[in-house]
């Protein structure tokens, strides 16, 4: 009895080890490709991309990438995670040094399919982030700001907006301004 269970576990462990080793490179390559594709999407073309940097703002660690050209910083790509409706919502946000949002891209989410998941496809919602000016307010219209929400997905829209606002705040901190980051979840304020 013990012998049988041990043998089965050993065999299964060996199989898992082999498959893990065989797929490790492919998995790393796939996730790196997804990351690079999203960075490429949110940054202006041209400019040399830096390695991953880390900065702590408001007690939360942010990963960011710099795009530089002619010795100047052209743009930042900040990875920003907040709580969405169904779990963590992770965005890659491209921000210009003056605080303009260049573009956004969703790295991972667990929003409701057909509702909150539209944050990756809804043309009106996704489109408004392209060159979102620094002068506009990063809050939903219903909360007194300038962001259009996705119909019937206020909580997801609010979380998405918060993730973008946090990324902009991170960039402002990197640029030398001191701006507080609101790490609260988008779902907490109804």
């Amino acid at each position: 009895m013990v012998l049988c269970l041990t043998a089965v576990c050993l065999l299964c462990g060996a199989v898992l080890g082999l498959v893990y080793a065989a797929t490790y490179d492919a998995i790393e390559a796939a996730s790196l490709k997804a990351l690079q594709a999203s960075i490429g999407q949110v940054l202006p073309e041209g400019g040399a991309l830096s390695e991953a940097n880390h900065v702590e703002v408001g007690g939360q660690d942010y990963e960011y990438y710099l795009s530089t050209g002619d010795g100047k910083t052209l743009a930042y790509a900040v990875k920003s995670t907040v709580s969405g409706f169904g779990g963590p919502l992770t965005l890659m946000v491209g921000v210009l040094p003056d605080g303009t949002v260049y573009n956004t891209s969703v790295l991972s989410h667990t929003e409701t399919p057909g509702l909150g998941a539209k944050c990756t496809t809804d043309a009106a919602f996704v489109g408004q982030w392209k060159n979102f000016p620094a002068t506009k307010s990063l809050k939903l219209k219903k909360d007194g700001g300038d962001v259009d929400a996705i119909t019937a997905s206020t909580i997801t829209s609010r979380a998405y907006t918060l993730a973008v606002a946090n990324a902009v705040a991170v960039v402002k901190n990197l640029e030398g301004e001191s701006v507080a980051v609101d790490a609260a979840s988008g779902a907490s304020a109804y």
Partner: protein
Amino acid sequence: MGKKISLILDGFVKNNPTFVLVLGMCPTLATTTSAMNGLSMGLATLFVLVLSNIAISAIAPMVPDKVHIPVYIVVIATFVTVLQLLMQAFVPSVYATLGLFIPLIVVNCIVLGRAEAFAGKNSVGASALDGIGVGLGFTASLVVIGLVREILGSGSAFGWKLFPGDGVLAFVMAPGAFLVLGYLMALFNKYLKK
């Protein structure tokens, strides 16, 4: 030959996991928000079901009765993890949609149920066919439920827009899943199951 075909057909109609055995309700309700999601989940389960049925029917005679459930679970969990790694490596976009539900195949009643009720007592060949039949039956059920929910809830089928507008949102959410499943189950049992 006739017996082999009937083994596969049984999985579709007589032993249809969703509408007759009513097993594996968690993935059925959760992943059928669109026809494509239902199809991917069905195929993932099919893969695990066939391989675990084969492996379990091969080792069943050597496994003492007292430990057969733990052994089955270890075997199933191994195949699920293999599937998870393969999907992560080669179809990351599908993995991103189904990610959460792949590990749950381990405790899917259909897989353990077939291991216990069929693979443990039958030959490797018959168990493989049973796995294919039940797996395809599960896939077909998920696609039908997903299709109905997608058409009613998002106005599209397999991602193609059928009519403008958003459809009835409730069908994309959990309550719609229960409604569609209930009506389909009733229709299935009235017309197909003799």
